[in-house]
């Protein structure tokens, strides 16, 4: 598995460039988030006529799209270079092209949001119509990510050619699955942006089919969240075992769970459209069933994680039912941050099952419960795992070492994050059950007694948001230190080894023709009939509106 122990300097530069952009996005997007929670407490108004919805759009785009995509691609470049060998000049060249396209696209998108020409939120639902520059910027981000994806595929193909009939390195395999998932799903958003939104915002066509656009968006929107989650799972499966000094529980089960994610995370977009007109209830239910299937690989992952920890603890002489917990390296931020992320995935997963069950969705749809949900999944589980990875990845790439003081600060950061999020997300969940809507500025809805009940929860959200912002400042201090100021030295890029008792991985798991065929077949089964229905029974299209 260990082709090279160290990521090549030139590949490190490419990975670091992505990670810098990611953390700049975190700083700006985090500030926007703080302002939102303060506005919603009802005790604070934004200065200089800045719109709540401009801030909200900035927050969603920077954290949901930019932070994630840049960190993920940077991390995957490093992981593939580390496990499948240094990139060729050509692969690296295309990696840089991808990086610059994404960066230019991000700058363009951010520009049009900040001048108030695109307060359409990060879901940009038609017929709200943003400036064409907003859609073009997003297109560049997606195209850039595709180029980086193909760079990874090319490198993987070369490895396979040079190592016939060998199983690929686990991290490389996982990165390839994630980029295949990303490619297949982002075709949907590319289709609605290029075929529908861009020509319509340029005035080339007058009207747009709103439901088709939303359906293409959500065909992309749910696998998007798995595109965020899978790199966290890569770190859990393949890197955390090495950090704690244990072994990977099972290489083949890890791969199987990734394959199941590829199959089941795409044909499930209707579970975001359960309250929607124009879609037959039968097809909604079909996708609800498929959505539940995507819970299975997460159930497998939960088992694998606990098993990794227990096997390690027992090898160190732990006894009793939970004695192994005491043997884990609680003082090591590289373990502690992702571990807290894992714990938060338990309520996150529970909430996800609620969201996906169509009658329960009626209770929570578009309430702030949903915001609370993805601040557990993305903003805690995924983000804390990424922070934990940054604590070794950045010094590895920058040729530095993390000091004890920084490690201690990182432990504090994790605790601050957990407390802040417990306040914010917890109160969001409860307020959501009482009906408080998401994506809305402060309002008492004409002093409605029902809306007045939400205010204490909104104040708790502001308290949580403030604590989380302190967490963001802490992580930025740590990351800046690791990138530029920490003492020079060698930091390990940990890559786990498979337990001796684990079975050898079947080569059939890399039969891409088969994997992609099954993926496409499931998508066709879930979408073909309702999608044709939507087009055949389409109402007159919609003109664009700029209502902000």
């Amino acid at each position, binding site marked *: 598995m260990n082709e090279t122990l160290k990521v090549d300097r030139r590949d490190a530069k490419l990975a670091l460039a992505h990670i810098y952009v990611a953390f700049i996005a975190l700083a700006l997007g985090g500030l926007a988030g703080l302002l939102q929670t303060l506005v919603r407490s009802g005790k604070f108004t934004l200065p200089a006529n800045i719109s709540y919805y401009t801030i909200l759009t900035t927050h969603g785009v920077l954290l949901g799209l930019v932070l994630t995509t840049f960190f993920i691609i940077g991390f995957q470049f490093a992981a593939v270079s580390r496990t499948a060998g240094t990139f060729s000049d050509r692969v690296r060249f295309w990696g840089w092209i991808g990086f610059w396209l994404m960066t230019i696209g991000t700058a363009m998108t951010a520009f049009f949001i900040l001048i108030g020409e695109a*307060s359409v*939120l990060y879901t940009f639902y038609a017929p709200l119509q943003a400036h064409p520059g907003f859609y073009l910027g997003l297109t560049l981000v997606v195209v850039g990510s595709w180029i980086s994806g193909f760079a990874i595929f090319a490198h993987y193909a070369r490895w396979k050619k040079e190592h016939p009939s060998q199983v690929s390195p686990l991290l490389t395999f996982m990165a390839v699955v994630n980029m295949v998932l990303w490619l297949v799903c982002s075709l949907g958003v590319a289709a609605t942006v290029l075929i529908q939104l861009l020509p319509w915002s340029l005035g080339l066509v007058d009207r747009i089919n*709103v439901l088709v656009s939303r359906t293409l968006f959500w065909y992309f929107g749910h696998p998007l969240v798995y595109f965020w989650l899978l790199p966290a799972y890569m770190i859990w499966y393949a890197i955390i075992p090495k950090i704690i000094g244990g072994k990977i529980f099972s290489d083949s089960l890890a791969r199987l769970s990734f394959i199941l994610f590829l199959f089941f995370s795409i044909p499930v977009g209707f579970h975001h459209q359960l*309250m929607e007109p124009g879609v037959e*209830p039968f097809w909604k239910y079909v996708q609800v069933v498929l959505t*539940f299937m995507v819970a299975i690989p997460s159930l497998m992952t939960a088992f694998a994680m606990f098993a990794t920890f227990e096997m390690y603890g027992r090898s160190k002489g732990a006894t009793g039912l939970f004695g192994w917990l005491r043997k884990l390296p609680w003082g090591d931020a590289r373990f502690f941050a992702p571990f807290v992320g894992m714990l938060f995935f338990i309520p996150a997963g529970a909430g996800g099952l609620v969201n996906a*069950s169509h009658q329960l969705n009626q209770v929570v749809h578009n309430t702030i419960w949903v915001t609370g949900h993805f601040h557990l999944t993305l903003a805690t589980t995924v983000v804390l795992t990424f922070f934990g990875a940054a604590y070794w990845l950045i010094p590895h790439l920058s040729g530095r070492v993390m000091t004890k003081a920084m490690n201690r600060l990182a432990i504090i950061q994790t605790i601050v994050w957990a407390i802040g999020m417990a306040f914010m997300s917890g109160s969001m969940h409860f307020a959501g059950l009482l009906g408080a809507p998401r994506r809305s500025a402060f309002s008492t809805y004409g002093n409605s007694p029902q809306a007045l009940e939400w205010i204490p929860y909104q104040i708790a959200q502001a308290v949580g948001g403030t604590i989380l912002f302190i967490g963001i400042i802490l992580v930025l201090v740590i990351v800046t230190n690791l990138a530029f100021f920490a003492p020079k030295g060698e930091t390990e890029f940990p890559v786990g080894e498979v337990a001796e008792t684990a079975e050898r991985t079947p080569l059939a798991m890399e039969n891409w023709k088969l994997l992609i065929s099954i993926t496409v077949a499931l998508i066709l089964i879930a979408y073909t009939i309702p999608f044709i229905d939507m087009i055949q029974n389409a109402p007159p299209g919609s003109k664009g509106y700029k*209502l902000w």
Partner: protein
Amino acid sequence: MHIHKYEKIWLIFGIGSLFIFLTIVGVSAFAKGNQPPSGLTTIDPEKVDQTPPFNKPGLVKTGDNEYQLNMVASAFSYTPAQVEIPKGAKVTINVTTKDVIHGFEVVGTNINMMVEPGYVNSFTKTFDKTGEYTILCNEYCGAGHHMMTARIKVVD
């Protein structure tokens, strides 16, 4: 592929639970009619004001204790903004929009619909308790989104 015995137990339990959840919502939806709002009627969004029943929005009695409540959403209000419903009435709410996407949530109930241009969305509910309910827009629709609201009063 070899799977640890305990993992098999866990997966059988976990997947079994998932199927029980699916059965509960499936039976409730298909046998008892608790389907999510999925209106399939289309309408020209620019001619809502001329299209019945939305040319005269409001509450209409359609049968013994049965009513239709036809509502129009537009940035940033609902028409009508106040509705009185007699207690115990079974009301089918039909709602459509003249401009962008809106939400239609009746706080504290299971009424929660997406309102999209070109479609009429519907949901039926019996109002058993007297009191006041807040209707609000829960899908972002523009600068005045959080001001978009209406009231339902259930009276004896």
